[in-house]
């Protein structure tokens, strides 16, 4: 069987509250309208948008019917609350006894919702599974609204290295020694260069943490070390999708200083990974009044309340616009290689109307996003 062609991956990242999820959905819709079969993946699903698009929050790919998408748009919105379970089930498929021990580990139970990057990893593997069938030309990934949204790319490989490293061996020895404390003190302590320091560290750490922490940590790591190979494979698949040659990055901002700083920060993180943002999308930042607003100004039949409303709306637009001008200039100076796409502030009752309107605006920018990735060294 020949492997299915790898999809192009567009990763959308940005801080909270900038409209990243809506923008990602709009981008996916624009791609589908342009004839490309597209999968939109939302790492941290906004229930409102999921509802509006008729997408359930599950691990299954769902067809989305939005205006003009034909049958080319699908969505994947995995539930973050379920992913740790999914992850552990996948890792320990062949090690049921270790899985049971892990689930009973007090430390694991305490850690379970703080396990950074696990949900992203699970989501990426669902993406990999979905795209291995060759069904999608483009995958748009809407990351979690955080500066650390792309850090998880490196986090699992660090953890994988940790699981294969000396720490685990040391912990395993420590747990064993803790179990036989007092019988043959130090008999199985590690030899060589680290022996002296390690013996001291063991005693000091055990004194500070009390009797439970070290053995429980040690057994937790021992269980994870059992499935290290699988762990590494999962990590590699996620990294290939996100950092591979067919991925590109869109950073999403809004006309606020906080959003600008988030974008600059994320661009810095990308730079460290050898990548650069392809485009910066500045939401809610139209520079001119809408044509309909200009048409209505002073028009016949426009009542006083309408005129007042128009004036208030225009004041809002003008202040957003001038904030956006300043931030665009600033971002342009700091990220000279990334064009800035300014999108209007779309207000509508139904979120799918907003998605459709923004997709119209993004239609002319698709080529810039999908061109061969720029690499930075």
């Amino acid at each position, binding site marked *: 069987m020949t492997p299915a062609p790898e999809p192009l991956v567009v990763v959308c990242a940005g801080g909270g509250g*900038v409209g990243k999820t809506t923008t990602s959905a709009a981008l996916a819709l624009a791609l589908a309208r342009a004839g490309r079969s597209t999968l939109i993946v939302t790492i941290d699903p906004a229930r409102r948008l999921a509802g509006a698009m008729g997408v359930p929050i599950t691990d299954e790919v769902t067809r989305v019917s939005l205006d003009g998408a034909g049958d080319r748009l699908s969505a994947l919105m995995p539930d973050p609350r379920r992913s740790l379970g999914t992850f552990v089930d996948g890792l320990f498929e062949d090690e049921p006894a270790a899985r049971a021990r892990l689930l009973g580990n007090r430390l694991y139970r305490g850690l379970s919702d703080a396990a950074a990057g696990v949900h992203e990893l699970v989501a990426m593997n669902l993406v990999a599974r979905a795209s291995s069938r060759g069904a999608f030309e483009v995958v748009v990934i809407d990351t979690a609204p955080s500066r650390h949204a792309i850090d998880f790319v490196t986090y699992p490989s660090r953890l994988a290295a940790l699981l294969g490293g000396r*720490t685990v061996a040391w912990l395993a020895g420590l747990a064993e020694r803790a179990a036989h404390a007092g019988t043959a003190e130090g008999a199985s302590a590690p030899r060589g260069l680290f022996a002296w320091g390690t013996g001291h560290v063991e005693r000091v750490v055990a004194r500070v943490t009390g009797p439970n922490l070290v053995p429980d940590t040690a057994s937790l790591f021992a269980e994870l070390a059992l499935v290290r190979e699988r762990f590494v494979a999962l990590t590699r698949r996620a990294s290939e999708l996100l950092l591979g040659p067919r991925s590109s990055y869109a950073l999403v901002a809004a006309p606020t200083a906080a959003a600008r700083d988030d974008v600059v920060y994320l661009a810095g993180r990308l730079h460290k990974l050898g990548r650069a943002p392809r485009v910066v999308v500045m939401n809610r930042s139209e520079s001119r009044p809408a044509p309909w607003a200009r048409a209505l100004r002073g028009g016949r039949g426009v009542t006083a309340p309408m005129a007042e409303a128009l004036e208030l709306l225009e004041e809002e637009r003008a202040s957003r616009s001038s904030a956006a001008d300043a931030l665009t200039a600033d971002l342009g100076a700091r990220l000279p290689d990334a064009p800035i796409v300014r999108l209007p502030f779309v207000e509508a009752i139904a979120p799918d109307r907003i998605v459709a309107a923004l997709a119209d605006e993004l239609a002319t920018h698709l080529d810039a996003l999908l061109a061969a990735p720029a690499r930075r060294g």
Partner: protein
Amino acid sequence: MIPRAPGKRLSAAVLVMGKGGVGKTTVASSLAVLEAETHGRAVLVEFGDGESGRRALAGAHRGVDHLVIRPAEAIQRGAAPLFGSATIARLALGNFAMRPLLRAAPAIRELAMLESVRQIVADRPGVRVVVDMPATGHGVAWLRVPRQGRDFLAAGPLFDLCDRLGRELLAPGRASIVVVTLPERLVLEETLELCAAIAGEAGMPIDRVVVNRVPIALPEEALGDARALAAIPGPLAEPAAALASLLAARANARAEAVAAIDLLARTDHSIWRIPLAPVDPSAKDVARWLRAEGAP
């Protein structure tokens, strides 16, 4: 039903919580500004690089002591008394096996940072300390850590640290919880879940709920007028329909906000409202709005 904190006054420590993007930092900074305006001094504690607090405080930092807690420093600082000396702590934490473990074990970082907050509060009697907490999910996990530590560690200095945090910082009367939310039904539902989790899992009542970005009302008759004009064939029909659609969206958002605030009021929470501004409001503006709502 979520238990309401007794009394009106906020405690010495004010922990500002909420999901990402709701304006937690803005609220935390403006509470610090408001406190400094009222009592001459306040502390704003931020985790991370200090950039967001600096930005939010810009031009309004008089009397506000902006303290930034970085994880690595907090761990070193918190570990010294546990290990008996800073040198032994540094040796132990710098050990080849400990370093990656500390990176991989989030609870240690959280304990150390909470301990830094406890020390900041303890060192400054009479000064209100406002803490810009990490976003939801993480936020509740943070508050839970000392409790879990106490249950999990049977004894030892680390147990004592958890126990002290539980008694001296994360206890009703010691710290007040301020939750920031948006006036949207789904965000509010998440917020009520968060409030229940804080109360149930961390044992802390919610002192205030701040509803940020409440849409202001546009002239009421404008929507009807725009719809009427849209119904008249002519060059303005389409522009008027576009205006009507926007005004309908606004009216809808406004109605949702009013309903959300009503719902909150029924849960017996004390509420502060902040209006929606088209661009970032300054901490001074927000402090003024909060004062009008009866804060601090």
